[in-house]
């Protein structure tokens, strides 16, 4: 029986859940439809409220 987790979508939300789980020692399979992860946030110049760079 596997205790792996599947995450669908590699935007900021998918990346953060994957990292949390992976850091807990759980194996994660992260599926992203596009050639690279990053999602919308990667397209943003800077982000509120800190105005630092997006990723």
């Amino acid at each position, binding site marked *: 029986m596997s205790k792996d987790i599947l995450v669908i979508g590699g935007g900021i939300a998918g990346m953060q859940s994957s990292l*949390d789980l992976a*850091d*807990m*020692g759980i194996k994660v399979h992260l599926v992203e439809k596009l050639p690279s992860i990053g999602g919308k946030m990667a397209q943003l110049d800077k*982000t509120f*409220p*800190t105005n*630092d760079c997006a990723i």
Partner: protein
Amino acid sequence: MPEKKEDIRIGVFLCHCGSNIAGYLNMEELAEFSEKLPHVTFVQRNLYTCSEGGINEIKKGIKEQNLNRVVVASCTPRTHEPLFRSSCGEAGLNPYLFEMVNIRDQCSWVHMKEQEDGTNKAKDLVRMGVAKAALLEPQESIMSEVQVRALVIGGGIAGMTSALALANRGYEGGLVEREEALGGLLNNLNKLGPTMIEADELVEEKTRSVTGNSNITVFTNARVTEVQGFIGKYKVDIETESGVKKIDIGVIIVATGGRPFVPEGLYNYDGKRVVTQLEMEKLLKAGLDPAIKNVVMIQCVGSRNEERPYCSRICCQTAVKNAMLIRELNPDAKVSILYRDMQMYGVENEEMFRDSKAKGVRYINYDPANPPQVEPDKVRVYHALLGRDMDLPADLVVLSTPLVSQEDAEVISRLLRVPVDENGFFLEGHVKLKPLDFATDGIFLCGSAHFPANIREAVAQGLGAASRASIPLSKGSVVVEPIISVLADEDACRGCGLCVALCPYGALEIQKTEKGRKVHVIDVACKGCGVCAATCYQHALSINSFTDQQIEAQLEAFLD
């Protein structure tokens, strides 16, 4: 001990990065230059140093050329330093005898059209890297055990959710609540938007799950009075009615919530005819007086002003909810909400907002420069759309006041050495990317202790904080990079504590030693930011792999 100077054998690997670097810099010249640098015994150019082939070349160099320092000049350490470091380790060289130089971002990319200057800059950078590498010393990663137990401070919906989540993962923990009952603010509420379930039922159900869970020890009428230690090893004193309990835990979650602001002196507030939304909840719970026919609500009372500039996020939704409940109980009552902006963000709130309009709640925008006036039986407001003052009859005026931070937030802040923001709410590690962590490892936050949150948000954050807190618990230990602060010159330290006050991670403390008061670095808490070393006028503190000597050597190499 550093080897004698003549024993140092540095290998320099120059990466072409395909054409990313080699297309713009003269790599041959750079290689010839590198060969002549002091202690350099081996220079190699690679098409891609990071590829499997390139990594094997580094390993081969370490073994066959007896290299005891490695310098890679390539792209950015942000992406590749961990790879190169661990490769050195795999070849038997201490990973911290590695130095990286960025000749892509800093040379080839920014000087695409200036090959000569770009190459000269790359030479400077390589020379500086080599100078530092010669002085590098081996370091060992620091590991510290974690006590697999958690403490949650605050027994509102957020704290209870966190405690339960951790318990569901098999982790034991304590939940400290200063009041007699669990539930927090919900104990004073009537029905909860948007689902309109009874607050009491929710509190009852959650309380039952928490108190019935064998993994959770609940302390009510209790307070945290002393916290010592660091991530993985905290000793906490909890003052309860039956004396002080001492517990050992590994992580802490702060879920102390907020309290509604009491608008003394504003809009003729008297708690009877002019009440707060919190008092309105009580009136509704008791069954509203049928004589109440005209209700006026005023938003942003005590918020979005100079003293409290923030928007408290949840008071608009509370007003809309209560306005609808009033109309339900007294269908012919007129309810008007005087607002600045209706903060009905998202799907559920906007839906409730629309619903309320359909149910006859009236909305009138007011200008904070010309605020409403509460008079004995009416409220006067300047109606912007009509362009004139309007009188609204009112048997009941309800003031929407913000959630403000707990009065004793400062105490928790001091005990845990975590910061609060300018409004007194706890300050997270990064507003965008670490909303549930403190900058200090091992301490987390959720719910209204962080910023006003509704129940959906408080529950989500409660789960999220549990996730974050469970990471060190699941590992059972924490490993940190040894690039941290060390008390390099104990005699020089005067124990003044300047550095202690400035460390953003609470990693320093003053200890009494035989030689007097001296600073002590809590290894696992230090992030190597260097604030302390830069502050210490006695140069007592030093950062591993960034020592004064190493940096001076780099500067000298640059000025050569």
